[in-house]
Structures are given as C-alpha cells and as structure tokens.
C-alpha cells in the first residue's frame, strides 16, 4: 500500500469531508507534512461559509384543530428543512474542513435530536456553539452545553428541581459527555443532579433561565469533593478529572481513527489535552504515527459519504432537484443531521454495512450522479478514468476486483461514477 497516499487520503476523508476536484492530486505533490500543516492551519476566514438561516421563535404550539396550528406546522417544517439544508451546504462548501468535521463530531458527542426538541431555533443555537468551540477550549464549551436550550429540553434539565431531582442530564453528563461509563458511582449521579437543579427552559426559543426556588442549595459530594456547587463548579470539577482527558481522547480516537481497536495506552492526545484545549489534542493526533498505520480502517457514515460525493462532484445539497428525496435517502440510510438515534450518537462501521444500506446507497448514488456535471471525466480517454476517479475521491487504491468492474463500464461515465462511489474502497476509508 502506498503509505503517502494512505495518509493524505485519511487527512481528507477523516479530518474533513473529502477533497474537491484537483485537491488530492495537488496534496500528493505537496507531500504529507505540508498537507498536515494545511489541515491544521486553515485560512482564518472560511471563504466557503454559508450564512446560517434566520430562524425566529415560533412560540408555543397552538391547540390542535385550529387554523393557527396549520400555519405553525408549515413554519416549523420550513425551518427544519432550512436548517438541515444549511448545514449540509456548509459541510460541502467549507474551506475549513477540520473545523467543520469537528462540528459534526461534537454533534455526535453531545448528541441531541430535533425529534424531541422539536423546534429548529434551539438546534441552530446549539450548532453555532459547536462551531464556536469546535477546536476551542473544552472547559468553556462544556459550561455552555449545560446552559444549552436544546440539551436542557433533550435531557429534561428543566424538570430537575430541589423537590425531586431528575437524573437524566447528570448521568449522561458523566457517562457520555465528560468521563465515560464506570468512571463515577451512582451516588455521584444523584449528587450531580442536585447541583444541576434550578434551571428552566423555554422550548421554542431555547432560552434557559435560573429559578432560585427550584434550586438545591445544600452541599453535594461529587467524585470525592464536598461543597455547595452549582453547575459551573460541578462541571469544572468533572472536566478537571484526568478521566476527562482520557475519555475525550477515546472518543476522538473512536470517530477519527478506529472504533475497532482501542485507544493505545498513554496516547499523546491525553497529554496534549492537559489545558483542555481541543486544537492541541487534534495536532497531537494528526502529527502522530497513527495516520500511517494501515490497520486503522473506518467506514464512512452516510452523511460523510453523501457530503464527500457532493464535494467531489460539485453538487450543492440545496440545489438538488428534491429536498424530500435527499432527506428520504438519508433517513433510509439511518443518518439525518440534527436527528441522532439516541443520546449516545450514531453507531459506526459495520452498522452502516447492511444489505439494506447497500441498496439505498446504490439508489442514492444513481440519483446524485444523474444531477452531476461529468464533463471533466467524459473529456478523458476511457483508460484514464479509473485513475482519475481514485484521485477525485481520495481512494488509496482500487482492488483488482473493483478495477475490473470499473473497466467494464468505463465507456459509460455515469455508470462508472456510480460504481466508484458505491465501491467498498470508497465506502470504507482505508
């Protein structure tokens, strides 16, 4: 295997959403070190940035069977559609690939679904926080996620009061967001829930307010520390635990390097996260040796696959011929932005490789390729097309099986492209 090609392909496929035409070939010329520098030091301003939609507070849901509910539902549907298209467009258009990939990572980490939140406005606010802190300070980020309206609705934070605490948020804060399972006790969960009491959220706007009457002001004991603590103190205490660095490194490893192999002990990411800054942790990973290790393969999730195809074929999600169709394909492939299946985020690897997804992927690919301008490939002599596609898609190498399947259809360009983007070599990031 060509390790240079492997490393550069991974930089594009995993630390971004895949290359745009010409980028991969250019990066091969520039070399691994220069490409790493480009990934880690993107332009200050994202020239591809898509302006977020203006989403207004729709207020309380009107009563059923009223004229108001019809208008309300129409607005809500339009807002959700706008939100989904905006983010997909942004993933495709961005020139700050790592930043955008980290927004996507954090969405899967602090996994919150619009299915329960129901309003688009809090989901947009949350996404903008992901954006601000994508590679920033994790301590501040975690504090903001506590007072995040969508998260408060999602995990019943507003229901957690001194009279009877609700543990939903406190448990997930430790298990899934900051420490990892088994790194705390059941007592810690209960005590943290008490420290989290006193907040209420407006569902439609996501505005979180403090209500002293609901607050438990007594001392709590969390991971051995006893004090009167509010969410800010409690979260600072959790984030300062060594287990927090271990856990965040594990999660980054799991999504960027391998969900099959565990994070090696004492990985350099852990030390690099000492100041709880995310950027140094990412540099430590990218500058380390793992990217050149061929054993760490990973399956592209449906959204990663779709956005990668759009980037390679210069398609824009909002300009595809049907939102309903695009959304439907993503839904059938079980991955729609803003709708993770549960608070643990999306699954990985083999979960995306059922026969059902193979079928939907082929249909989706056919629909997309039929809308793409393929003239650059048509212009090449057929014998050169497979190699061109490998660079276009950042595929490390075609297997003999795929090479021969591509050779047979190389005269029919749309079919050739469909095959290439459905091939095991593209679906899996080697």
């Amino acid at each position, binding site marked *: 295997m060509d390790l240079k090609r492997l490393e550069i392909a991974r930089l594009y496929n995993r630390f971004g959403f895949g290359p745009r035409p010409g980028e991969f070939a250019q990066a091969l010329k520039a070399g691994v070190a220069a490409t790493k520098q480009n990934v880690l030091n993107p332009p200050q301003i994202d020239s591809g940035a898509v302006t977020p939609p203006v989403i207004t507070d729709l207020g309380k849901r009107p009563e059923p069977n009223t004229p108001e509910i019809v208008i309300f539902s129409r607005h809500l549907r339009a807002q959700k559609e706008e939100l989904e298209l905006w983010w997909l467009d942004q993933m495709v258009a961005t020139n700050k690939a790592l930043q955008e990939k980290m927004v996507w990572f954090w969405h899967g980490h602090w996994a919150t679904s619009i299915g329960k939140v129901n309003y688009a406005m809090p989901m947009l606010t949350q996404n903008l926080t992901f954006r601000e802190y994508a590679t920033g300070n994790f301590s501040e980020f975690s504090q903001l996620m506590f007072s995040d309206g969508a998260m408060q609705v999602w995990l019943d934070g507003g*229901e957690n009061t001194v009279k009877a605490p609700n543990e939903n948020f406190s448990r997930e804060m430790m298990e899934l967001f900051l420490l*990892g399972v088994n790194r705390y006790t059941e007592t810690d969960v209960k005590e943290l829930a008490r420290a989290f009491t006193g907040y209420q959220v407006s569902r439609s706007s996501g505005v979180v307010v403090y209500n002293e009457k609901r607050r438990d002001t007594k001392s709590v004991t969390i991971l051995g520390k006893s004090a009167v603590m509010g969410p800010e103190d409690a979260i600072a205490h959790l984030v300062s635990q060594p287990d927090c660095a271990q856990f965040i490194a594990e999660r980054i490893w799991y999504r960027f390097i391998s969900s099959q192999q565990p994070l090696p002990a004492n990985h350099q990411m852990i030390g690099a996260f000492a100041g709880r800054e995310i950027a140094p942790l990412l540099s430590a990973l990218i500058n380390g040796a793992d990217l050149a290790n061929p054993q760490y393969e990973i399956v592209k999730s449906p959204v990663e696959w779709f956005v990668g195809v759009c980037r390679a074929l210069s398609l824009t999600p909002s300009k595809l011929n049907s939102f309903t169709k695009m959304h439907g394909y993503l839904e059938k492939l079980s991955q729609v932005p803003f709708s993770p299946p549960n608070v643990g985020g999306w699954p990985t690897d083999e979960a995306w490789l059922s*026969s059902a997804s193979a079928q939907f992927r082929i249909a989706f690919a056919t629909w997309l390729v039929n809308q793409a301008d393929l003239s650059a490939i048509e212009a090449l002599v057929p014998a050169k097309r497979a190699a061109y596609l490998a660079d276009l898609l950042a595929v490390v190498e075609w*297997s003999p099986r795929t090479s021969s399947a591509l050779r*047979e259809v190389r005269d029919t360009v749309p079919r050739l492209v469909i095959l290439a983007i459905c091939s*095991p070599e593209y679906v899996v990031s080697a």
Partner: protein
Amino acid sequence: MNEIPTMSAEQLGMSKYTRRQFLKFSGAATAATAASVLSMNDIAEAAITRPLPLGTPILVVVSLYGGNDGLNTVIPYEDAAYYSARPTLNYKPETLLPLTDGLALNASMTGIKTLWDAQKVAIVRGVGYPKPDRSHFSSMAIWQTGSPQTHLSTGWLGRWLDNQAVDPMMAISLGSVLPPLLAGAKQSGSALPLGGLIIPAGAIGKACMRLSTASQRDSKLSAAAATSMRNLFSVSGSITPVLSQPAPLDDDLPTVSGGNAGGDSNLTQQLNIVAKLIAAGAPTKVWSVSLGGFDTHANEANAQAALLGTVSTSISKFLSQMKASGRSKDITVMVYSEFGRRVKANGSDGTDHGSAGPMFLIGDRVQGGMYGDQPSLTKLIDGDLAVTTDFRDVYSSVIENVLLTPAEKVLGKWSGRVKAFKSA
C-alpha cells in the same frame, strides 16, 4: 468472514460493557459470522420449501428500550406506599385492571388483561440481576448477553443458535440492525428490514454484482462492504401474495418524552410481519422485535400508557392472528426491559433509572399467574426495588420449555427456574 469479534486484553479485563463496546458489538454482530440480512422473499421461499412443522415451539422476544417503569405497569394499587412515593404520578385504583395479590395492570393494557383472564399470562415480578447497572447501554448489554458479571461477546439467544444446525432462518430480528441478543460465535441471527429489499436491476445491477465479489485484497471492513452488497443479489425471486402487501404505516407514538435510549418505534408493524411470516410457515424458531421510548424521565403517565397500550394491543392482535394459522399453541411471547425505574417519582412527574421490573410470558404454553415475589416498596435498596428473581431463572425456563435445549448450554450452570410453563 468467519472471524469472531476480537477483544483486546483491556476490554476482556473489564467487568462491564462500555457503551462503546456495546455499540461496536451491536454493529459488529452481523459481520462477525457473516449473518445475512434477509429479504421477505428469502423467507417466503424457505416457508414454501421447508416450512416449520406444526407444533414446533416458537419464541417471540419483545425488547422494551429505555427502562420500562414496572411499578406503573403492574401496579401495587392496594399499597399505601405506592401512593406516597408517587403523589402525582399514581393511578386511581378504579381506573386500573385488577389482577391478584393487590396488583393491577395499567389501564391501557386491556388486551393483556383479556389474555390474563384466559390464564395465558405469567407475570414474573421483581426481575433483575445482582448489582444493577443504571446505564441504558450497559444494562441492555447485560440482559442481552445474559451475563451480569463477565462480559461476553455473544447474546444468550446467539449461544442457543450456536447449538443449532446452521440456518440463517433460525432466528430473525425485525429492523436493519441486528441486536446483540442474536449474535453467536458460530452463527448469528438474521436481520429483516421492514419493507424488504429491492434488488437493483439491469446494467447497473449487473455491474454492482461484479463490484460485490470478494477480493483477496479486501480489508476486514471492505470485505464486509462487499458482502453487504453481495447479499443484496443472493435473494430469491419468488414472492408469495401474503407477504407482498404493503407494510402498514408506523405507529404514531409519543417518543417526545422518553425517546432517547434506543429501540424501534413500530412494534405493531413488526409483529404484523412476524405474524404473516409465521402463518406462511417460516422455518424460524426465534423472532426478536422491539419498542423504544420508555425512558420516561418526565411527564411519564400519558407517554408510558400509550406505549404500554401499543405493547398490549399489538401482542393480543398478534396472538389472535396466530389463532387463524393453527400455530397459536406454539407461540410464547417474552417481554422485558433493561431496568425498572426509581420508586419515588422525580419532580417532573417522571421517574429516573431504577433496578428490578416485571417480565411477561404470554401464550398457550404458559401457566398464567404471578411468579416471583413482589418487591417491597418500603424495604428499598438505595431508593430502588430489591431484585427478587434473577432474569437467568426466566431465561433457563424459556430455553428448556420453549427452545427445548438444556439451559446449561446457553447460560452455564444455573439452578434457578420459574415454573411458568404447563407440563408438556
């Protein structure tokens, strides 16, 4: 593709599942033994060519994801402690469906009450396992692997499968992802996506078929990607009219207040398909279906009642469909959830994660009645119900009485039993 999932020493040394392992496991299960995703046509063909002999017992496992509140399912409505623990989250006695021993079913469970009256429902009370784990993901892994202490990479029904002749039809789960429950070391159960599969036809179909052949150069995941596409083409061509009817629409379920801990949302549709396939003679002894949404931390009463109503109605409808097929005597339905909920309601008219809960065994082979001791509402362990019956007692009895296999082959040496089945 016949690899057993490999676990590192670090992973094996851990006593409990981490969420990561559970997810990995649930995803990896299909690839572990190259278990195929089936199409309706596959099953239809098997049902025609080698139908399950009448009289063969069939197990239908219903997994309730999110942690069903047992105390508001089988309700101790004569116990004052119930009302004081849940001052605003209790049910008025006159609205409930009384059973025996001071217990009543949730008012929404009329279908199961009718079956209870016909003595076809065994309720096993206080079911759980030692040292309850309150993480959804860890606790579900414990129930599905059948192993509370050490973590195993196979499900309890997967280990039963390992003792059967290799047959992808032997155990089937509805939905496109296989639950760990059916993952075996030698063979895994199959997943049946709702709505079935459509095989790409014409030139693109042929080209994709070529693309899906195995390659020496494939890595593990590339091989899995090729296999998944190949399975798409290995389905048969025959369709029976029974199965080609359009699938009904999803239930309109209140996932709003308890829906963030996994599970599917269309139990009625799943059981409807299972009923059709059993009636058609599918050579399948174990079926797995699921319903999510039971994580009722807030405003529980209406949401849970709607979910329990779906469970009750879909199971009673399923069993009445079975009557027409002549196989109703063969069916046993088993219902469980990963944990019950805290006895004391929280401030939001919901409940937090707890420990023990009731299990249901339903069918003609079941000796209706109450089994296991009702956990006390006053002698709580850290605010939770004490476990009075180990789930392995129930599993052992199911393995022996429904799957007709020595329980030791699946669970190792385990002496507890719940004698809830009629003697053969």
